[in-house]
């Protein structure tokens, strides 16, 4: 694409956000809407500054991220192993997979009450929930990826007299890598969602989700907005990172 059209596209892309900002600012100044519902932009920035400097916003974000990563790693490790096991051992696949497919229909957030009874409201419960969120898509995609391995590939392994472990690590897992990468991508997105959900419902301890809920309870729209923007931003970064990791992991295939 040539340069001028790129500039046009950027200009067009910025039009709507700028317009929205202008309307936002103007409606506050002209008193068209209640500032409790739509605080001036200035207030939102000041709140962000205040939260960063006085209330340890960075620390809150850090504990959310830590929780997210811990849960994600546990869920991913379990998911890849369980998915591989299911796909590689046909009898467990036939016996367990239908149940797994049934259980995955329960929407994620519905697990929270049960998890809170079993694991309490603390860190443990949150990490279990985040791990569950990552576990489900990663298991499914690992399973499907390995199941799709063509027969010829398996035969090569047999010709080379690979044992079961070698077949899994040298043939099946590399073959399933694109599918596993998709699972990991989804797992990252879901686990961030789960982190937010866990912090909403199991509201003990620091975290961005807790911050947003606190903002709502105090009717502090500026604080809620700051929290929501951070939520979106972190989600965006995770999505980008997962995409980049996926491309990197799969580069050897070209």
């Amino acid at each position, binding site marked *: 694409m040539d340069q001028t059209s790129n500039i046009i596209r950027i200009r067009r892309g910025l039009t709507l956000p700028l317009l929205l900002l202008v309307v936002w600012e103007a409606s506050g100044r002209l008193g068209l809407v209640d500032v409790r519902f739509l605080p001036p932009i200035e207030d939102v920035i000041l709140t962000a500054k205040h939260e960063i400097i006085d209330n340890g916003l960075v620390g809150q974000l850090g504990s959310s991220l830590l929780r997210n990563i811990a849960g994600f790693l546990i869920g991913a490790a379990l998911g890849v192993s369980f998915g591989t096991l299911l796909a590689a051992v046909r009898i467990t696949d036939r016996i367990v997979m239908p149940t797994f497919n049934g259980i995955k229909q329960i929407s994620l957030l519905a697990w929270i009450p049960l998890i809170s009874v079993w694991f309490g409201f603390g860190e443990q419960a949150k990490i279990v929930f985040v791990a569950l969120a990552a576990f489900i898509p990663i298991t499914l995609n690992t399973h499907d990826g390995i199941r799709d*391995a063509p027969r010829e590939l398996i035969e090569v392994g047999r010709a080379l007299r690979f044992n079961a472990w070698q077949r899994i690590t040298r043939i099946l897992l590399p073959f399933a890598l694109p599918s596993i990468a998709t699972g990991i991508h989804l797992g990252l997105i879901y686990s961030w*969602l789960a982190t937010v959900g866990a912090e909403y419902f199991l509201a003990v301890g620091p975290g961005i989700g807790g911050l947003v809920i606190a903002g709502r309870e105090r009717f502090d729209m500026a604080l809620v907005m700051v929290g929501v923007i951070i939520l979106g931003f972190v989600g965006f970064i995770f999505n980008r990172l997962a995409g980049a990791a996926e491309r990197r992991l799969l580069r050897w295939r070209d």
Partner: protein
Amino acid sequence: MAIDIGFEGQAQRRAWSQHRGVRWVRRGEAFLFPVALVALWWIASALGWLPEQILPAPAYVVETARNMISTGELFYHAGVSLRRVVFGFSIGASLGMILGIAMGLSRRFEDYVKPTFLAFAQIPTLGWIPLLMLLVGIEETLKIIIIAKGALVPVALNTFSGIRSVPGKYLEVGRALRFSPWQRLRKIILPSALPSIFTGIRYGLTHAWTSLVGVELLASSEGLGYLLVWGRQMFWLDTVIIAMIVIGIIGFAMDRGLEASEIFIRRWKRQSEE
């Protein structure tokens, strides 16, 4: 147990499983695991491994379920949730489709709207709930908006990419036949984008259902999500478990229903092409 990762003889096996008996055995296998789980659960509660508040006996859960069905309580809450989803999903999916079609048809509209749309789409549905609670309160409007938002994003994105991947050749045919823009949309673009739109609708419905549970957990006095919260607060784990099962069954049924209609529409499309 030998690790069986050979895939040889798949054709023979398929021939075998055509056999009725084998098929029934296969079907039976799927129930082994759940039956074993329930047996374990039953033993665990019979021997009192876990306190009743942590894991109620299966018989107790069944009894509660029967009670909730006979009093109509379960249907009432499920009905409330379903109504919200149908309403919110219809609004969200229609808006998403309109947005996706508009972005797909006009590069100019895409340039103006898509970056902002993507930025908003980054914020998880859960993030919007507290914000909207402050704006519109915790009544029905909140639930409908949240559910609609959950459906809108995947429908819009998939409709958009479906329209963008209509093969150029098809459009040329339309030009050669001097189709009007309306004919082009109806006869070429939409049919060709249909599979992708359907994918969006299925994702949209899944998202809508998840969003419903989220919003009902946070702010509701009826519905399946409310049942979860209420059961949790009262330490009625039987109610919690029943609500979870119903949420799973409805989610499953909706997804299967859409899958079936997708197959139906594709078949109809193929027939009408012939």
